[in-house]
Each structure stands twice: as C-alpha cells, then as structure tokens.
C-alpha cells in the first residue's frame, strides 16, 4: 500500500467529513472502560485501557499489528469467552451494566452488540436464510419477508439481490457478502455494531461501498471499527483510539492505549509523539 496519498486524503476528508461535528467530550455514553485488561493464559494482550464510547458515533481503533485492538474489540460482545484461557478484567460497562457481571448472559450481550468480521463469514444457506438466521434463533416475532427486505435495503444490497433471494450466499462477490453479513447483523436489531477490519479482504471499490454504508448506519447505530487502514479511520470515524504494542520491564509485549480523541484532533494535532509517528507513516 502506498503511504504517500495519506496526507492528501486526510486534509480532504477532515474538512468535509463527519469528524468536524464531533465535540471534544463524550456525551451520551454507551460504553465505559476502566483499567480494562485482556489476557490469554499468562499473556496480557491488552493493559490498562480506560475510555468512553459515544452513542451513534463511529469510533475507530487503530494501531500496529499485535497492539491488541482486535482482542479489545472482541471483549465488547464477549466473543473472547469462546477462546479457552481468555480472561477479561477491569470494568467494561454497557449503559452502566458491567458486561462481565455475574448475572449477565453473553447471548443477550451479543444480541444487543452485533459483530462483523474480517472475512465475510456468510453461512452456507440462501441469501434470505442468512438474513433470517438471527431473528429465527432469537425468536423475534416479525414478518420475515419484510424484515429481510428492510435489512438488505439498509445494507445497500437489496437492489442487487432482490430477484435472487433463494440463491446461495456463496454466489455473491466478496463485497456483496460483507454487506450481506452487515444485513444479517442488523436483522437482530442491535444497538452497537462491532467491525473487525471489515474491508481487509475487499478491493477498493467494495471498500468504498462499505464505508458509505457505515456512514449511513451511523445515523442509527453505534459503530466500533478496528482498522489497519488509517485513511479509512480518518474518512469514516468520529473518534479514534490509537493503540501500540510495548515491551514491559520483563520484555513481554502487550498492547496499550496511547491516545484517544476526536478523529480530527488525532490526525491533525496528535498529542503523543508515538501517534504522530504512526499516522505520518514513520512506523507500523
């Protein structure tokens, strides 16, 4: 990937994009993280993360490989529960409720906080059944035909597939599959959508479509996105958290939050030298 156009893209998008309207303070808090630590066995992947995430905004987690941003994202809907040995400590509160509290049902958490993955993981079913899967397993009472149409429309896919709803989802292109996964995700009516590098396996045109879609969805949903692509973070996000991988005194590598703020500030006036080095392409 070429590093040079970053500067150009940034100034362009920062003057015209969403980032302009974001206040410095986070009002309307959805998530509160206090001293959050995630570890696999003895290895601490993420240390001491404290931040708050605002409703109906797009928050981007950026940073070099191995900084723990994907691990952190998977803590928000308790997907880390599925990995043997994974442990989350500290506070991760959703509207004031500790997601890792004793009487919290992870299945209920995942209904409210949906997730889109790096590889479009459509099910080996028809397009229709992919979208209807979530409502069916959650026993959501609704007119399924209407719900499928509504979700596919919101995911900007309806016009392309409306005549092929019974066809296998594998017949779609990668970009269409990823939009189908987004439609499937919103079909269970979540409040939050987590996106783990959703464009990593897509070409630039498909990526642009997903980014447009994310801006549309942000009117209705709170979105957290992990991305390797800094231009993408600059283009779509309202707030950005920059993470880095550090060695501690014992030489163990772990992820740490360096800087968090409105995207325009992170990209135009970073407070930390490490952030500045990373976004200007000097490392990572």
């Amino acid at each position, binding site marked *: 990937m070429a590093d040079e156009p970053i500067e150009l893209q940034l100034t362009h998008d920062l003057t015209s994009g969403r980032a302009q309207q974001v206040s410095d303070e986070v009002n309307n808090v959805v998530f509160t993280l206090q001293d959050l630590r995630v570890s696999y066995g003895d290895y601490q992947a993420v240390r001491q993360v404290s931040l708050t995430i605002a409703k109906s905004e797009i928050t981007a987690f950026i940073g070099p490989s191995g900084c723990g941003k994907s691990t952190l994202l998977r803590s928000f*809907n308790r*997907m880390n529960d*599925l990995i*043997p040995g994974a442990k989350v400590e500290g506070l991760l509160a959703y509207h004031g409720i500790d997601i890792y509290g004793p009487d919290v049902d992870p*299945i*209920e958490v*995942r*209904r409210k906080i*949906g*997730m889109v*993955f790096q*590889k479009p*993981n*459509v*099910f*080996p*079913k028809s397009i229709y059944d992919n979208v209807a*899967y*979530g409502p069916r*397993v*959650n026993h959501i009472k609704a007119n399924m035909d209407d719900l499928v149409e509504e979700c596919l429309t919101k995911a900007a896919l309806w016009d392309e597939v409306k005549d092929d709803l019974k066809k*296998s989802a*594998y017949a779609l292109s990668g970009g269409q599959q990823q939009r189908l*996964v987004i439609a*499937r*995700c919103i079909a*269970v009516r979540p409040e939050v959508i987590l996106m783990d590098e959703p464009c990593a396996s897509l070409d630039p045109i498909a990526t642009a479509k997903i980014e447009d879609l994310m801006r549309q969805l942000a009117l209705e949903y709170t979105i957290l996105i992990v991305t390797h692509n800094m231009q993408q973070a600059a283009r779509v996000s309202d707030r950005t958290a920059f993470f880095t991988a550090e060695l501690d005194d014992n030489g163990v590598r772990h992820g740490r939050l360096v800087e968090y703020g409105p995207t325009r500030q992170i990209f135009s006036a970073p407070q930390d030298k490490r952030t500045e080095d990373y976004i200007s392409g000097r490392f990572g």
Partner: protein
Amino acid sequence: MSASPISAPVIEVEYSLRQTRSRAGEKVIRGVLLAAAAVSVLTTIGIVVSVLIPTISFLAEVPVTDFLFGTVWTPLFANGQFGVLPLISGTLVITAIAVVVALPLGLGAAVYLSEYASDRSRRVLKPTLELLAGIPTVVFGFFALEFVTQVLLIRIFPGIDIFNALSAGLVMGVMIIPTIASLSEDAMAAVPSGLRDGSYALGSTKRQTAVKVVIPAALSGIVAAFVLGISRAIGETMIVTIAAGLEPRLTLNPLEGMQTMTSYIAAAGSGDLSTGSIEYKSIFAVGFLLFLLTFIMNMVSIRLVRRYRQVYQ
C-alpha cells in the same frame, strides 16, 4: 531513486535451455507410484471377473427372475430352490437396525466431540472411540450372542430366538458408531471457525450453532460418513454369522433368526461343496449381487457428496 547507468564489461554467455542432468529417479518414482495405484484397481477388476464368470454359468441354470424374485432359498437341499429374496431381506433388516442405532449415536458423538467437548476431553475421547473400531468382529459376534441376546433381550422379549436379527443389528450398529462419529467429527472440525463466530455473534446458543450452521456446512462429509458406515454394515459377515443364525427366512420380524447374503457366502463357502456344482456357483451369484448393492450405494454417495458440495462451497 535515481540510478546512473553503470558501464559493465560485456561477458559472453552461452544460453541453453536444454536438460543438463538426467532425471532417472523421477521416472522410477513415477513407475512405483503408478504400480501402487494399479494394484487396487487391478484387484477390483480381477474380483469382478472371477465372480462374474461363475455367476453367468449359474444364471444359465437358474433363470434370473427365479433368482431375484424367488422367496425360498434352499440351495443345499436336493432339488434346492434359489430365490434370493430371503437373503436380501435379512441383509436389509439387520442393516436397517444397525443404521437406526448408529446414525443418531454416531452423529451425536460427533457433535459432542466437535462442538461441546474441551480440547482435553476430545484428546482422550476420540482415540477411545476409535479403539472400538479395532475390536475384531468375531468378538462383537459373541458379544451379541452371549450377552445382548441371552442377558438383555431375552428378558425384554421372552419369546426371542437364540439366533435373531435384533442382537446382530444392535451390535453391528455399535460397531459402526466409531466410523460415523470419527469421520463426521473430521467434517465438522473442518468447518471454518468464522462460521461459528458469525453464529455466536448473532446471539445463538451452542445447540443452535451446531444444528443450524455446523451440521449443514459439514453435510457432504457427514453423508459420506453415513454411507461408509452403511456399506460396512451391509458387508459385515462375522457378527451376523454368529448371532443371527443361518436360516434363510423371508420375514421382517427382528426377533427371528435370519441369514444375510454375507453369512450365506461364509457358511456355504466354508462347507464341502464340490466346485462346479450349482450350489457352489450360487455363492458367486450372491457375491455378485452383494457387490452390485454396495457399488450402487457408493455411486449414490458420490452423487450426494457432489451435490451438497456444489451448494455449500
């Protein structure tokens, strides 16, 4: 980067693309591997030919319709009758019992191993299960006769024959569980973990993920496992010879004794029939029919596997 042209001394190089080393080893390996592949193919052809010739001469003496649709099988009697239906029905009844036992248990075991068991218990359980496949079938046969019939079944069904289809079918079902469980588990383990993640992220339970995502995605492998298990059941000889008796009977009652195609071949083949006699040739005719039956099963399974593959991958 700006590079200034460097003037280098011109060296004359002779370009050649011809082979410089002999690769005799390649040819030898190719020959050895071809021979390895040929052995099983040639054996199959040899079996078909050696079974087909006596079968044809058998059918010259017994009309095909009498053979396929006759309901009495008494080849060893004077003026014996050669209606193969009792052997076919015996084979199908016992196989059906085995399938009813093995499919749910085998699939259940596979789902448990692949979706529920921890890494540690899987590492212990799977080899243990596969150990069951290593038990000689003669041991299973006596287990069916001595324990299943005479300890268990006789209490539930007091009128049951000592030699009966039920015990043979039940034990045969247990025998093929490891085949079905192990191969199905392999197919489920090969389902990308991204599909499971996708299902869990939508608020599915483990059961919903297993039943609605993992099993459909692994269906072609599961069907192949089922067919292989059923083929093993149809071809199984020792258990039925020992536990189901040697009396060809056209019945669907599993509490009675039955003879299967395989147990007829085993029993008649180990007797003292004179070669060239009609009784002797009947062994080959039954064998050929058995071969056809399993061959059709395999064809159907290949079809099924291909069809599901097209839909799901």
